[in-house]
């Protein structure tokens, strides 16, 4: 971030000048946790950061599925290809559902920070319903493909497709379970710090799933249907 010659030096008046605090305008006090002064970071920062690292490792897991799909995308073994199978109308609706769901999840967190129970619960409920519609559409697509004889056992391409998209669908389904328990916890316990930390983690999880879906609809569906 800064050259070796400009690392923390003593300001003339004897106070420590912290080069990492450039751009901070907040208040009169100059202690920053996690920057070597002001003591250890609070639990909220540590929990959020730990969950962020988990999410990145989850994305690395998905990258293995993406690599498998990319290698096997042309290995259709004489069976149907993406161009024959993918219905972009359904994918567009799925994308809209997940994007709106991600947005409403963010709004629910804003409402939770304002300690507004009604709008938090409404936001989370809408998040969950849109996520549920997404999962239903995906299950419908899988069932339809399997009925047409294009199940995961048909070709290496379809095995990779069902693994990648199914793994994402599984994440969304588990996220819905988590969302349900989250709503119950907020309802029963209110906006305690521990509950707010969990809600922050859920937000991160849900937004990360949307990021993975962007990669899926671009690489699998749009490039598969066009190529």
């Amino acid at each position, binding site marked *: 971030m800064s050259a070796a010659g400009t690392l923390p030096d003593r300001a003339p008046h004897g106070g420590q000048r912290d080069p990492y*605090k*450039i*751009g*901070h*305008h*907040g208040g009169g006090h100059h*202690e*920053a*946790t*996690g*920057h070597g002064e*002001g*003591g*250890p*970071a*609070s639990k*909220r*920062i540590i*929990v*959020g*950061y730990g*969950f*962020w690292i988990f999410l*990145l490792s989850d*994305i*690395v897991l998905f*990258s*293995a599925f*993406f*690599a*498998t799909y*990319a*290698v096997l995308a042309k290995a259709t073994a004489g069976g149907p290809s993406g161009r024959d199978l993918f219905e*972009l109308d359904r994918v567009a609706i799925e*994308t*809209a559902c997940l*994007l*709106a769901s*991600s*947005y409403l999840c*963010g*709004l629910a*967190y*804003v409402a939770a*920070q*304002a300690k507004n129970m009604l709008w938090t619960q409404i936001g989370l409920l809408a998040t969950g319903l849109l996520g549920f519609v997404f999962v239903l559409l995906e299950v419908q697509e899988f069932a339809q493909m399997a009925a047409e004889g294009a199940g995961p056992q048909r070709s290496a391409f379809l095995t990779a497709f069902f693994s990648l998209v199914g793994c994402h669908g599984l994440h969304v389904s588990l996220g819905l379970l988590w969302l349900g328990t989250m709503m119950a916890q907020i309802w029963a316990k209110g906006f305690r*710090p521990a509950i707010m*930390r969990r809600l*922050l983690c859920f937000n*991160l999880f849900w*937004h990360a799933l*949307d*990021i993975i879906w*962007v*990669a899926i609809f*671009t*690489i699998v569906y*749009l*490039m598969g249907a*066009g190529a």
Partner: protein
Amino acid sequence: MTDTGRTDGEDGHDEEDLAPGEEAIGGSGIAHGISGYTLGLVLATLLTVGSFYFAGSRGLIWGPGIPVALIVLGIAQIGIHLVFFLHITTGPDNTNNVLALAFGFLIVFLVVVGSLWIMANLNHNMTSMADVIAMQR
């Protein structure tokens, strides 16, 4: 609570540090939060519509350019999600989050590009199965 004498309790807001997914301090409350998410939604929607439009179009842009356009739009949208939904910024309070993200991207890049590279080389260097079967006759 430790003996550092901090006043912000176990979970109070640190003045100058952010967990991933949290908005920078200085934003003022509900209106600021909602407008940030809404701007992100609008930009992401535009990029998504653009992706689906390019994928379905014939002759609008040069055919082999379509995958490139799709990848560019996809990366742009991932960037929008990171900034507006996950609130990853270049600010000094976000250094740890950005470094972790950069490391994650490095691993993803190595896994995907490395796999494609190795498998393409193997395909190139190996005799195809059809030839093997023909040789055994």
